[in-house]
């Protein structure tokens, strides 16, 4: 509840600080527009026509359902990865043996390209929701696991000694000692994983599903419809930016207030 109140209170000032970000995005638009001048409408339509297409898609009612399907798949895969990765990573971080044993396994997972997992997932789950959800999970899990592992391992042993001398019970060790420290490793990992989840889910849908943004992209590609393609890309990236900067970043600022005051 406190977190929600702080989030709402900090929002206006935070949004005001977003002008810099908006101006850099506008520079990107300008570059895009000038490339359109070089290559023409078929290769790269103008930002204006792209957003007009996006508006039409929303007006026609086809955008939100597809985005909702994609978001559901990406977020369920991400939620599974966050839950499993954070818990297992922290558990592994507490034990030296588990940390040493899990590291090479995680490196294997990180090194396997998502497209390879996608092929396996298509064989295992067919064209159901399981394919994109599993691919997102397996692409995000190692990133979060490593964040949690690193965070837990880097906790100062002097503070651990202090905690055991002051007889902190297990739940206090978790909430007052480990989590505040691990959070500063975990949260960037969550944000990275969020980006990965959106990228991977669109790729998985493009190859394996009949609905969602990925499938819509496959259709627009087959019609050589570049502006619809770009409209879908803008929609996906726009939602990612909104979630990261409007939701996650303010939460991070609030939780890590002790660090910023230094």
């Amino acid at each position, binding site marked *: 509840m406190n977190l929600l109140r702080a989030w709402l209170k900090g929002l206006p000032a935070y949004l005001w600080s977003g002008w810099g970000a908006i101006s850099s995005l506008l520079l990107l638009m300008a570059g895009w527009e000038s490339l359109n001048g070089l290559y023409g409408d078929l290769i790269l339509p103008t930002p204006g026509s792209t957003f007009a297409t996006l508006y039409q898609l929303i007006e026609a009612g086809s955008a939100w359902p597809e985005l909702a399907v994609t978001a559901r798949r990406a977020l369920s895969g991400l939620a599974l990865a966050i839950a499993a990765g954070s818990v297992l990573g922290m558990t592994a971080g507490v034990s030296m043996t588990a940390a040493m044993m899990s590291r090479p396994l995680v490196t294997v997972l990180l090194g396997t390209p998502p497209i390879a997992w996608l092929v396996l997932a298509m064989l295992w789950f067919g064209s159901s929701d399981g394919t994109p959800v599993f691919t997102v999970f397996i692409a995000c899990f190692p990133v979060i696991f490593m964040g949690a592992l690193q965070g837990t391992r880097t906790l100062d042993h*002097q503070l651990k000694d*202090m905690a055991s*001398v002051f007889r902190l019970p297990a739940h206090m060790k978790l909430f*007052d000692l480990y989590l505040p420290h691990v959070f500063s490793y975990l949260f960037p990992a969550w944000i990275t994983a969020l980006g990965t989840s959106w990228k991977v889910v669109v790729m998985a849908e493009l190859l394996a599903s009949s609905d969602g943004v990925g499938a819509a992209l496959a259709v627009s590609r087959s019609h050589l419809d570049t502006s619809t393609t770009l409209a879908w890309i803008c929609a996906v990236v726009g939602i990612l930016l909104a979630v990261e900067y409007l939701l996650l970043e303010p939460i991070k600022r609030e939780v890590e207030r*002790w660090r910023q005051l*230094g």
Partner: protein
Amino acid sequence: MNQALLNLHDVGHAYGLKSVLDGIDLSLEAGQVLALVGPSGCGKTTLLHLCAGLLNCQSGRLDNHFVRPAVMFQQPRLLPWKTTRDNIALGLKAAGIPRRERLANAERIGAAVGLDRLALAQFPHLLSGGMQSRAALARALVLEPDLLLMDEPFSALDIGLKAQLHRLLLDEQAARSLAVLMITHDLMEAVRLADTVLVMAAEPGRIVHRFDLNIPARQRDDALVHQTTAELLQNATVRASFGLSAAGAGDCPHRPSMLSPGMASFGAPANQAAPAQRKGFGC
């Protein structure tokens, strides 16, 4: 005499093959203040960690019958993500004291060690080193311990603060017959606070000298402390343990004050020795 509640009998400890403690015998009664002094690296901290239960006793016997021990470490070891007030209340929270009560206690003890409300509301890294040490002392004292283990607790403080916290510690100690085992390499601090001073020597760490002070700590004045410290430093065993040359200061019968030559050269310009000395001060 009271019965000793902390007993160490022939305790030894080794890190790998390197023996750091050997044949330590020690006992501590309720309300007794025991100071361990010795050179750096003689195993003082290891001994304290053994008493605090942070290390397992490898050889010998260690019995600790104190019920509520508290530790003040060499570094403040405050949690950086908690305000100073919450840090002080940490041990109370662990003991399950309700929030309102533990914060009120933390404020009271915080005020006693000289931390104002502003300092209590801040995160520890915004406080000076001295204030962090005081917060660490407050965190230990707020638990109303019966045994306080301290590892060079006041080494980061200036002499004024040090004296203030010494008084606070002695008041707390007398009020609740608190037993204190403190480590220091400051002989004068040991002589000021302790009922018994144990001198340790290194390689391996062992107790080489015991010194009992009969006058209660709160009745000792500066002159007595200085004189006793000087006497202790004359002792051949103590000198050897700190690696001081065997020839004590005592072999120079007529000894001027250390400050007088320099003062003379400034205060009396007619002094014949002054020009030569002035060169030294010229820069």
